[in-house]
């Protein structure tokens, strides 16, 4: 199955960065206005995390599935279980180490959105 992995990684990195920093900034927004550099620098490790997650945990579902199945089929078959597992791990992480809840919330929401982007890629091409 053909997937536009680079585009998905870029979008995921952006989304993960937004969620990550929104959660951090929400604690004391008025005191953290000059952290632009950190936001930019943080995009490097975030993109690495996104790349690893997409390449090793999401894309294989589409690559390994039978060719006569559509992306929609793959999504409907595997996404629910991926979502439940991902929620379980991120929820456990958030409970056991609440200091890095920003990481787990970004990881959870971004990974699910990556699935949606992969599954609806065809539509995106048409709309462009």
């Amino acid at each position, binding site marked *: 199955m053909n997937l536009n992995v680079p585009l998905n990684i870029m979008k995921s990195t*952006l*989304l993960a*960065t*937004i969620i990550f*920093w*929104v*959660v951090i*900034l*929400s*604690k004391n*927004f*008025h005191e953290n*206005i*000059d*952290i*632009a*550099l950190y*936001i*930019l620098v943080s995009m490097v490790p975030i993109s690495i995390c996104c790349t690893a997650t997409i390449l090793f945990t999401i894309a294989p579902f589409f690559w390994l599935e039978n060719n006569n199945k559509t992306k*929609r089929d793959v*999504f*409907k*078959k595997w*996404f*629910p279980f991926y*979502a*439940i597992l991902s*929620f379980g791990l991120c929820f456990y992480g958030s409970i056991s180490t609440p200091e890095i809840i920003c990481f787990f919330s970004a990881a959870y929401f971004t990974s*699910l*959105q990556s*699935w*949606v982007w992969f*599954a*609806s890629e*065809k*539509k995106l091409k*048409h709309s462009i």
Partner: protein
Amino acid sequence: MKKLSLFIGAILFSTLFYRQNVGLNLTLFSLITFLVLSIYNPKSFKNRRTITLGFLYFITAISIFFYQSTLSIVANYVAFFTLVGSVSQHKSSIYINWINGLYTFIAGFFHRNFSVLENEQKVKPKKSIDYVQWIKIIGIPLVVLIIFISLYKNGNPVFNDLISKIDFSFLNFQWILFAALGYYLLYNISTPISIDPATEIDLTTNNYLNKIENFSIENTKKENQLGIILISLLNVLIVIFLITDFSFLFSSNDFRASIFSSQVHDGINALIASIIIAIIIILYFFRGNLNFYRENKTLKLLSYTWIVLNIILVANTAVKDYQYIYYFGLTYKRIGVLVYLLLTVIGLITTSIKVMQIKNFWYLLRVNTITAFAVLIICCTINWDKHITSYNLNYAKAIDFNYLINLSNNNTLLLKSYSDHLVLNSENKRLVTNKYNNYLNELKTRNWQELTYDNFKKELK
């Protein structure tokens, strides 16, 4: 009206849970989720099963208000997932309801977001709210704006002064983020989703085994012989075990807690293993053709005997547990053993029904998960800590007072009353007074979201 209910729900979610402990808030949130579900899915609430599950959900919510126990919180979550799953598909089994309920609660937004995109591909564009687009047009400019403000600040002192004067301290962004989370969760459950392959398979799978037309009589006969020999030997073994166990039970005069403890807990471990293996063996032999084999009566009889002997084994362990409780009082572990034994007996009875009425494995799974759910709901309505304390103080031959002190605050009033009316040694009296005073302080410092039934008791005011 529908969207408004979600917004109000989100604001209430943040008001109820932001930096609060569990109490009245979870009870009220259960009410909110029930309202959202019923506003969005009025048809589902005409179904008797969904109404019953809604009622059970309420019971767990009320038990949280009364006892604030971990068990009632767990029961509340399980009842919630069952209700949401039942709204998504009321005919499916309870374990499928749990999966559907959990999935809807955590990822309903993404599933529906994908469905919207999918529909857009097939038919003309639909006028639904594109949440991703909203996140983009708010989130991206916000982050970029922050970056640029930060850069300009360093380049111009006047601009820096101007920015420094902007005070956002009146806004609580965490509270807003919490409300957004509430909106996400309520939006998720507003239209419950069913996981397709799993729900579909469950709906098309009935409780009965189907006869295969041309099965090999020879192979079935061999399997029947193997089953008869194996289950006969296991019957003999369990009878010998029961005789030796009963003789030990009636002859032993050693009432040390350690002896009872090892007896009950080792017995339980053996029981868990033996009953699981027993059910697997019976399921294996009665998985297909053997059910329809004419000469299977002996095997069936042996299986029923084995089930009855296993039930006697359960009763034997229950007697040991009862003796343990009689001499050394109630504890959660000892109650847990009794609950486990009850579930085991039900499991064994349903296994015999499965053999008798030629039912399949899914029947066992369905009936036993419903039983486990019912036991959980019943258990959450009981104030265990109070009952444990009351029993141990009034009937147990020996009391572990530290155990009672370490239980939750549900027994504090009882301990205080016991301490006031009966003679206790000074150390225990001090422990009770400490617990009571700490509890009073806790009650006084609670916010309205964290209130429980004890806050309204006159003797604590």
